[in-house]
C-alpha cells in the first residue's frame, strides 16, 4: 500500500457517520483480548479490554478522564510510557500475538503497523528541528537514506495531508506553524511508513472546532484512501458519534459498553453511557428569552479597539479587537463566541475595565468610563468577572473564605465590611458549597468547587453584571453541567446580567439570550441566540455551527437525550 495510488483531488467533505465494520475486511487487523495494564508498582489501571480493528473502519473509545482510554490505545501501539506495562491479555496483529515476541521483533512489527497522532500538536513536534528533518526521520529506511528521495517523499506526504506551500513548510520550525498545520504534520509523520492502523489519541481536542473538523475530515479521508484501521480516542462523544463506526465506552479501566456507534449512542444500555451523553451541552435546546427591548442599557461599548505588539516584529501590530460595538441591557445574557484568538477575552477585559483599550468609548450605568485602570474599576465596580481557569484564579495561599472576603474587605461598603464572615457564609450557600469548605485552600477542592468559589467571589460585591470568560471550559464534562446550572439559576434569582464568553456554542445556546459572533476581532453578527443559531446570517457563523462535532446526533429522539437541567430547574 503506497501513496502512489491516485489521490482524489480536492478537499474531502465531511463524510457522514463512519461506516460500520466492513464485511469484506476479513479478519481484524488488530485484535485485543483481555488487555490488562498495571503500573510497575502493581496498581492495576486497565482490566480486560477487548478491541478489534479492521481496515478502513474507525473504532472510537470514549470515557471520562482517567478511564484508561489513552493507556489502552498506547498499549495497542506499543507505546506505553515508562512505569506502566501490559500485564495480561493478548494483542494480535494480523493474527500474530505481539506480546510473546522479543522486544526488538515487537518493535519492528508495531512500527510498521501503527502510526500515532497525539493530542497536542504544539508539543508533539521537536521544537529544535525543522519539519523536514522530523518527517525524514519517520520515513522508511530506503527513503530516509537519500536526501533527495527523503525530500521528495516528505513533500508528497505534506501535500497529501493538505499542508499548503509544503516545500516552504519543510524548512519551517514547528512554532512557526499553526496548531492545525502542526497536527497535519504529525499525521503525515504517522502515515509516513504506510501503516495499517492509525491511533489518534484526542487528536483534535486542542484545536478549534473548525480546525478540528478539518483534521477529522483528513483522518476520514486517509482511512478511506489508504484503508487504514483508525482507533480514535476522545472524551468528546460528539466526535466519536460523527466519526466512528464502532464505539467502546470505558470506565475505570474497563469496557462498560460496546457496539455500533449508532446503536450504542441511540440506545445506551448502561447508566454510565447515558450520563456521558447527558453531560454534553446541546445545540438544539431553546435559549432563554431576552429582556424587553427598552430594558436599561448597563454597559455599552462603541468602536472598541485593542492592538497588541507582535513579538519579534517591531512596528507591526495585531488588532485583537477591531471596532466592536456591544450593548448589554439589564437582564440580558449575551454570549460572545468565536474561534480561539478572535478577541473574546480581550473584549471582556476592556468591558470589565482592566484593559483600557486603544479606542472607542465605554459607558456603564449611563456614565462614561474613562481614565486609567484603577479609575475605570471604580466606575465598573458593579461589573464582576469569572475567570476561565478556576485554579489559577484563586491565590493558592488564601483560604476559600479569604478569597471570597477579599473584594468585600478591599472595595466593599462599610456595611458590607462589618459583616464579612456572615456574607462569606451566605455566598457559599448561594453557590451551593458547604460552609466548612471556607477553611480550605484551592488545592483541596475539585475543579467544580473551585469555579463555584470564583463565582462566589464575583458575587461578593453584589454586582449587576457578571462577565464570565469560558466559565466551564476548564472543567470536566461531568461537572460542567452543574456550574452552568448554577449560573443560570443565579441569573434568574438575582436579576443578573451576563456576558458569557465561550468557544463552545452549546454553552451559549443553553445560557444566553443573545449572541455576538467575533472573528479576528471583528463583529460578524449579533442577535437573539435562537435566531442566530437557527438562521445564521453570516457564512462564517454557519461554518462555525457546522463544525460542531456531534451534529450527526442532534435531533435524535429527545427522550434519549435528557436536556441538562436549566434555569427553569431550581
Amino acid at each position, binding site marked *: 500500500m503506497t501513496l502512489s495510488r491516485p489521490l482524489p*483531488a480536492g*478537499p*474531502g*467533505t465531511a463524510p457522514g457517520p463512519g461506516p460500520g465494520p466492513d464485511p469484506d475486511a476479513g479478519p481484524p487487523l488488530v485484535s485485543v483480548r483481555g488487555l490488562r495494564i498495571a503500573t510497575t508498582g502493581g496498581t492495576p489501571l486497565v482490566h480486560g479490554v477487548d478491541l478489534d480493528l479492521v481496515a478502513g473502519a474507525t473504532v472510537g473509545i470514549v470515557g471520562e478522564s482517567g478511564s484508561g482510554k489513552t493507556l489502552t490505545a498506547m498499549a495497542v*501501539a506499543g*507505546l506505553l*510510557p515508562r512505569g506502566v506495562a501490559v500485564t495480561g491479555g493478548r494483542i494480535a496483529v494480523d493474527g500474530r500475538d505481539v506480546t510473546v515476541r522479543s522486544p526488538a521483533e515487537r518493535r*519492528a512489527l*508495531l*512500527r510498521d503497523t*501503527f*502510526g*500515532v497522532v*497525539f*493530542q*497536542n500538536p504544539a*508539543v*508533539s*513536534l*521537536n*521544537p*529544535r*528541528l*525543522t519539519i*523536514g528533518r522530523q518527517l525524514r526521520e*519517520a520515513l522508511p529506511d530506503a527513503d530516509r537514506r537519500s536526501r*533527495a528521495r*527523503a*525530500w521528495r517523499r516528505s*513533500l508528497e506526504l505534506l*501535500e497529501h*495531508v*493538505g499542508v*499548503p*506551500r*509544503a*516545500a516552504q513548510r*519543510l*524548512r519551517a*520550525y514547528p512554532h512557526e*506553524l*499553526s*496548531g*492545525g*498545520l502542526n497536527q497535519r504534520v*504529525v499525521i503525515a*509523520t504517522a502515515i509516513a*511508513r504506510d501503516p495499517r492502523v492509525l491511533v489518534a489519541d484526542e487528536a483534535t481536542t486542542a484545536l*478549534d472546532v*473548525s480546525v478540528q473538523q*478539518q483534521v477529522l*475530515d*483528513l483522518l476520514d479521508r486517509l482511512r478511506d484512501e489508504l484503508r487504514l484501521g483508525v482507533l480514535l480516542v476522545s472524551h468528546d462523544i460528539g466526535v466519536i458519534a460523527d466519526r466512528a463506526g464502532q464505539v467502546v465506552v470505558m470506565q475505570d479501566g474497563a469496557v462498560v459498553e460496546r457496539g455500533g456507534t449508532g446503536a450504542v449512542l441511540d440506545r445506551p444500555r448502561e447508566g454510565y453511557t447515558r450520563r456521558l451523553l447527558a453531560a454534553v451541552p446541546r445545540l438544539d435546546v431553546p435559549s432563554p428569552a431576552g429582556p424587553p427591548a427598552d430594558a436599561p442599557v448597563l454597559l455599552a461599548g462603541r468602536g472598541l479597539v485593542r492592538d497588541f505588539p507582535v*513579538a*519579534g516584529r517591531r512596528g507591526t501590530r495585531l488588532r485583537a479587537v477591531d471596532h466592536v460595538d456591544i450593548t448589554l441591557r439589564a437582564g440580558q445574557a449575551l454570549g460572545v463566541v468565536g*474561534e*480561539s*484568538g478572535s478577541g473574546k477575552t480581550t473584549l471582556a477585559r476592556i468591558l470589565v475595565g482592566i484593559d483600557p483599550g486603544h479606542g472607542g468609548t465605554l459607558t456603564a450605568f449611563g456614565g462614561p468610563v474613562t481614565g486609567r485602570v484603577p479609575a475605570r474599576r471604580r466606575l465598573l465596580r458593579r461589573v464582576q468577572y469569572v475567570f476561565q481557569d478556576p485554579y489559577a484564579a484563586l491565590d493558592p495561599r488564601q483560604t476559600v473564605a479569604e478569597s471570597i472576603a477579599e473584594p468585600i474587605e478591599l472595595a466593599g461598603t462599610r456595611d458590607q465590611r462589618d459583616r464579612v464572615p456572615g456574607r462569606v457564609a451566605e455566598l457559599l450557600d448561594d453557590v451551593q458549597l458547604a460552609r466548612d469548605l471556607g477553611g480550605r485552600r484551592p488545592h483541596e477542592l475539585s475543579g467544580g468547587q473551585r469555579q463555584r468559589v470564583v463565582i462566589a467571589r464575583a458575587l461578593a460585591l453584589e454586582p449587576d453584571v457578571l462577565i464570565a470568560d469560558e466559565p466551564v471550559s476548564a472543567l470536566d464534562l461531568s461537572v460542567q453541567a452543574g456550574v452552568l446550572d448554577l449560573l443560570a439559576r443565579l441569573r434568574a434569582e438575582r436579576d443578573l446580567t451576563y456576558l458569557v464568553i465561550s468557544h463552545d456554542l452549546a454553552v451559549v445556546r443553553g445560557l444566553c439570550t443573545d449572541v455576538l459572533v467575533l472573528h*479576528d476581532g471583528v463583529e460578524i453578527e449579533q442577535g437573539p441566540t435562537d435566531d442566530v443559531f437557527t438562521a445564521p446570517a453570516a457564512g462564517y457563523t454557519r461554518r462555525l455551527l457546522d*463544525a460542531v462535532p456531534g451534529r450527526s446526533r442532534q435531533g435524535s429522539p429527545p427522550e434519549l437525550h435528557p436536556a441538562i437541567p436549566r434555569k427553569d430547574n431550581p
Partner: protein
Amino acid sequence: MTAVLSPSGPPGPPAGAPPDPVRPARPRWPLSARYVLSRLLNAVLAVWAVLTIVFFAMHLTGNPASLLLPIDASEEEITRLTAALGFADPLPEQYLRFLGQVLTGEFPDSIRYGGDPVALVLERLPATLLLGTWGMIIGASLGLAAGAVAVFGRNRRLRRVPVSVLTALEAVPSFFLGIVLIAVFGIVLSVLPLRGAGTPAHLVLPALVIGLALAAPVARVFRTSLQEGTGAEHVRLAEAKGIGRARVVLRHIVVNALAPVLNVLGVQAGVVLGGAVVTEAVFGWPGVGQLATSAIDSRDFPVVLACVALIAIGFVLVNLLVDLAAAILDPRGGRR
C-alpha cells in the same frame, strides 16, 4: 492564533500549480541581524559601563605616583610625577581623555611596564584561556556525565550520587578547594606540582578547581532538562516513528537538553573568569587574573582598566556565542 487554514477546508495542492522546487532543506540561520545587533549594542554598553565604574573607583582613591618613587621621596617629587603622569588634571578631563584613548584603541601606557596595556593583557590571555577552556571542558564533561547518569542510570539509588557529590563540592570556595587539592595531590601524594605553570601537570589542579565550580550547575540543569525531555510528547512521537532508542535519546532528548546547559555555561563564564582571579592567585598561574591583581596592587591603572575591559568583553563574547549556539539548538529563542 487564528486558523491558518481557511474555514472552507484544507486546500489541497492547487491543481496545476507549479511544483515546489525539489531542493532539500538547508539549515537556516537562526538569528536575526537585529537580534545580534542589539546584543552587540548591549555588550558595548556593558563594557563602557564597566570601564567607567572601574575608572572612577580607581581615580577617586589615589594615584600611582607615590609607589613609583623611592619610599623616602619628598612631597614635591610626588607632585611633579603626578603631574607628569597626567593625574593632576581634573577628573572629567582625564575621563574624557581616557574614553578617547579607548575608542582609538590606544590605552594609555602601562605605568609599571611602560608598554601598551592591551598587548600586556593579550600576552597573558593564552594562559587564562588555557585554564578557562580546560576548566570549562572538565566542568562541562563532569556536569553532563553526572546529569546523564542521574536520569539514565539504572540503579535508582546510585544514580543520584554523582550530582550530589558535585553539588557538595560546589559549596567549597575555590581557594579552599585549591588548598585542599594542593595538600592532597601536591604534598601528601606528591604527584602534582604545587603551583606555577609550564607543563600539563601544572594545569591539572587549577583546571579542576574551575571545573568543579562549574560542574554542579551544569549537572543540575542538564538533569532537569533531560527529565523534562524524557517525558515530552515529541519524544514519544519520535519513538512512535520507530527510530532506534539511541537515536531518540540523542537527537530528541540530549541535544534538546543542551540549550539550557549552554545558557548556564554562559552565565557561569563569569564564574570562570572570576574564579580565574582566585585560582590564579592560589596556584600562581600567570594569567590575566594575576596581572589584574598585581596591577591593582601597584596602581597600574591602564593595565587594570585593560584587564577589566578584556574580561568584560570576554564575558560578553562568551555569552553572545552561547546565545547563538543556544538559538541554533532552540530556534524559538534568539530570533526576537
